[in-house]
């Protein structure tokens, strides 16, 4: 443990060093401003942007007798060529013939070009070189004109992007089929389309010193707790790292319990899910470059709620909800329970079943715990192989693998047949709650080992430990186990049952609600009364 402290201090030092290094190394882009000389500017830009092959520098002249030299700098593949051709070059070359260099002399005259000649939506005037380059790297086009120390940055972002498709991870039978894409703007637009409200705020930050990734915080002002929004922002601002490539990076930097196996931030690929969560008072974090949107705070039961619960009828939704809890319980305890029953508590198995199971176990070489662990490992390997392989082979291989291993291991007498049944049941159940499946795998392992040593007592001790941990966890100030404990009777409407929409009167209290009431009371459909 003492060593640990030293290690900690050591790591701290290294980290401090790193940050300093970064600060000193990064200004390859100088703080310089642009000069009036186009040649010099271009030289400087070439210098900074280096030999990258996708940098296009287009020099041209325009105005009266083509006396004005100018240059466009943009990145090939990041920009929309049509805009550049039609809205920048064309107006300058064709319509600006009459402008003489003298006319441009007055200091504010670059403003004229900006105002009159560029038929593009977003144009800004930039002086510092660094800013211009950053914009250029993000897909904008720099227009440099000889004689000006200012550059015009024209918004020409446009690149090949995946279109809005149905998300593969969260398929629904009923409900919208669109999913987020890798482009932040598309994602914000998808959300904006769901929530047409001026209170719906999208704030953008840039994170990652090297990647300069755009990260967007989305919330509904007046519904989300302002303290929560502040907390999210301050945590995000604390991140000082090289790269943010996926929302998972952010999650690990700002989650409450970094050592806990439980995820304390939810993610979703579906705009309707994220919109619903924002409407409940949560804050969403969108990261450029990934379709996975984070929402905070997360509570444990969120893993058991699916978008479709709210689109299908309440009875069935409630049934399925309960089934998910059951499946979760099965997936974490089934192998452990089997091990405990067969090695410690044989008295709890009904006699005929015991005889059958004992017969199946005759001659198998490994103890039940070992069997459970081996089969569990094999299952995880098969699953991983199935996920990683190209889809057409993947499913085939996992099925064949499972059949061959399961079938032949049993017939060879290596593994008892009941164990194969238990493990496959566990596996199937684990697919029901995908967002907690990593927790489930860990819990299953720990419980199985505990059960192997102390039977049911071990399982109960393990579950109690888990309960304590769950009760102690918080996600952005909200108790993780929230509507269950601390108990909020009002919020139980959406835990084991999903009450009909007209009865969902309030927003969940657990999430630091602000605007408590969700809808009018008494919206239950009913035949009109006589005096109405």
């Amino acid at each position, binding site marked *: 443990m003492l060593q640990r402290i030293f290690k900690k201090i050591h790591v701290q030092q290294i980290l401090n060093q790193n940050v300093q290094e970064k600060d000193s190394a990064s200004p390859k882009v100088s703080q310089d401003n642009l000069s009036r000389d186009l040649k010099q500017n271009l030289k400087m830009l070439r210098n900074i942007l280096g030999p990258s092959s996708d940098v296009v520098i287009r020099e041209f002249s325009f105005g009266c007798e083509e006396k004005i030299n100018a240059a466009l700098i943009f990145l090939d593949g990041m920009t929309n060529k049509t805009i550049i051709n039609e809205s920048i070059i064309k107006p300058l070359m064709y319509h600006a013939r009459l402008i003489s260099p003298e006319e441009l002399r007055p200091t504010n005259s670059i403003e004229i070009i900006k105002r009159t000649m560029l038929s593009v939506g977003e144009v800004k005037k930039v002086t510092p070189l660094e800013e211009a380059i950053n914009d250029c790297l993000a897909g904008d086009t720099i227009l440099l004109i000889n004689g000006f120390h200012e550059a015009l940055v024209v918004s020409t972002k446009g690149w090949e992007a995946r279109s809005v498709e149905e998300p593969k991870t969260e398929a629904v039978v009923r409900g919208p089929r669109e999913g987020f894409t890798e482009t932040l703007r598309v994602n914000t637009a998808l959300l904006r389309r769901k929530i047409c409200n001026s209170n719906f705020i999208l704030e953008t930050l840039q994170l990652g010193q090297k990647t300069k990734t755009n990260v967007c915080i989305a919330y509904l002002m007046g519904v989300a707790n302002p303290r929560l929004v502040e907390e999210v922002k301050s945590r995000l601002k604390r991140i000082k790292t090289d790269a943010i490539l996926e929302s998972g990076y952010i999650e690990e930097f700002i989650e409450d*319990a*970094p*050592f*806990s196996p439980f995820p304390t931030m939810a993610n979703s690929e579906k705009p309707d899910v994220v919109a619903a969560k924002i409407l409940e008072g949560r804050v969403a974090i969108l990261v450029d470059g990934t379709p996975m949107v984070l929402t905070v705070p997360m509570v444990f039961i969120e893993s058991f709620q699916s978008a479709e619960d709210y689109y299908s009828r309440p009875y069935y939704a409630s049934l399925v909800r309960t089934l998910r809890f059951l499946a979760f319980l099965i997936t974490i305890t089934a192998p452990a329970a089997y091990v405990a029953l*067969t*090695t*410690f508590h*044989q*008295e709890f198995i009904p*006699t005929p079943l*015991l*005889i*059958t*199971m*004992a*017969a199946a*176990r*005759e*001659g*198998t070489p490994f*103890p*039940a715990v070992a069997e459970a662990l081996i089969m569990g490992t094999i299952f995880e390997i098969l699953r991983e192989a199935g996920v990683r392989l190209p889809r057409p082979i993947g499913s085939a291989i996992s099925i064949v693998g499972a059949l061959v291993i399961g079938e032949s291991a049993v017939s060879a007498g290596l593994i008892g047949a009941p164990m194969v049944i238990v493990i496959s049941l566990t596996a199937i159940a684990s697919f029901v709650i995908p967002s907690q499946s990593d927790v489930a795998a860990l819990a299953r392992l*720990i419980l199985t*080992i*505990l059960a*192997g*040593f*102390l*039977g049911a007592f*071990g399982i109960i*001790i*393990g579950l109690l*430990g888990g309960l*304590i*941990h769950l009760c*102690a*966890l918080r996600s952005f100030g909200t108790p993780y186990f929230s509507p269950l404990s601390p108990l909020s009777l009002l919020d139980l409407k959406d835990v084991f049952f999903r009450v009909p929409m007209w009865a969902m009167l309030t927003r969940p209290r657990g999430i630091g609600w602000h605007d408590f009431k969700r809808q009018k009371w008494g919206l239950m459909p009913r035949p009109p009364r006589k005096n109405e």
Partner: protein
Amino acid sequence: MVKRGSLFLRILAISLIILLTAGCWNRRELDTLAIVSGTGIDKPEEPGKVQITVQIIKPGEMKAPQAGGGGEGGSGGQKPYWTVTATGDTVFDTIREMAHKSNRKLFFPHNEIIILGEDAAEEGVQKYLDFFARDHEPRWLAWVLVGKNTASEVLETKAELEKVPAISISKLIEARGATSEASAVTLHEFLTRLMSKTTAPVASLIEVSGQGKEKTALLTGTAVFKKDKLAGYLNKTETRGLLWVLNEIKSGIIDVECPGGKGKVSLEIIRARSKIIPEIKDNTLHLAVEIDEEGNLGSQMCSDDLTSESAWKTLEKNQAAVIHNEVMAALKKARELNTDIFGFGEAVHKKYPKLWKDIEDKWDEFFPNLEVAVIVDAKLRRSGLITKTVKPE
């Protein structure tokens, strides 16, 4: 506050280490168990010793019936059970003694029957049953039986429909409802009666019939204990009499004379309920046993027309008389043995706790002379799919 997550993980790690170093004490795999399905207790020749027979299930053989159709008889190895006998000083000691014969540890939770040999039962059963009540393995739901022969003989009988004789006997007891002529007593019930100051314990009686390899076990009535010693037996009729009073009749057949007197009519018991009502009249204690019974006409072995009102009434009356006689027979036997098998004492205790304090210790003198009124209310409800019997009009 120290990080919460890390604490959780560390505690888990610590407990795992403790577990790993400490090993595993109570672990036993399924294939290291000798599942006991039945236990028999006998008194051997040698005085002061106990002889115990256990029947162990062989799961492997249970599974595979394909080898040689049935397969008992010739080679003993194919029997799906194994009957072991050992002798020792105490019950526990004897059971542990079997470790010398069986490589697997005897496993008692699935023990379904406890058979007490006649000799052992006569000697007193408290000392034998204590182990089954105290140890954490045997269940209190095991059936207690008394074997007219030795217990080991009973366990070595042949079972036709089941693979293991002990399970067969256990199912035999569970199926008693069809006749209600055998009592079924769980260990828990037996112990409850044994602990009672006045109520006498009873147990099912089992006998071996047949010769050689064709021996079968059959239930023949009830064994009655005085305190913990075997006092006598009730035959089938008396057993049913007992069950009437105890409110344990499930079904059964009552044979009565045809109203015309030529042949018998079988009535099936559909529902029965009874109550013991102690009463003090004129300063003396009376007991009334009220029995309500409902039956159906089951079969008719005479050609009379039973559908007439008078015939029907007669049948009901006869039915009541049969029940009455059965109860009286049981009562007579109980008086003879001076054993309160009906729990009359407890009934008095519950109704007249003050009076009870005075007569509690003198119950043995009280019981044989106790006035018991048996009031039977028997009804016939339905006549089946036909009304009159099948005969030419």
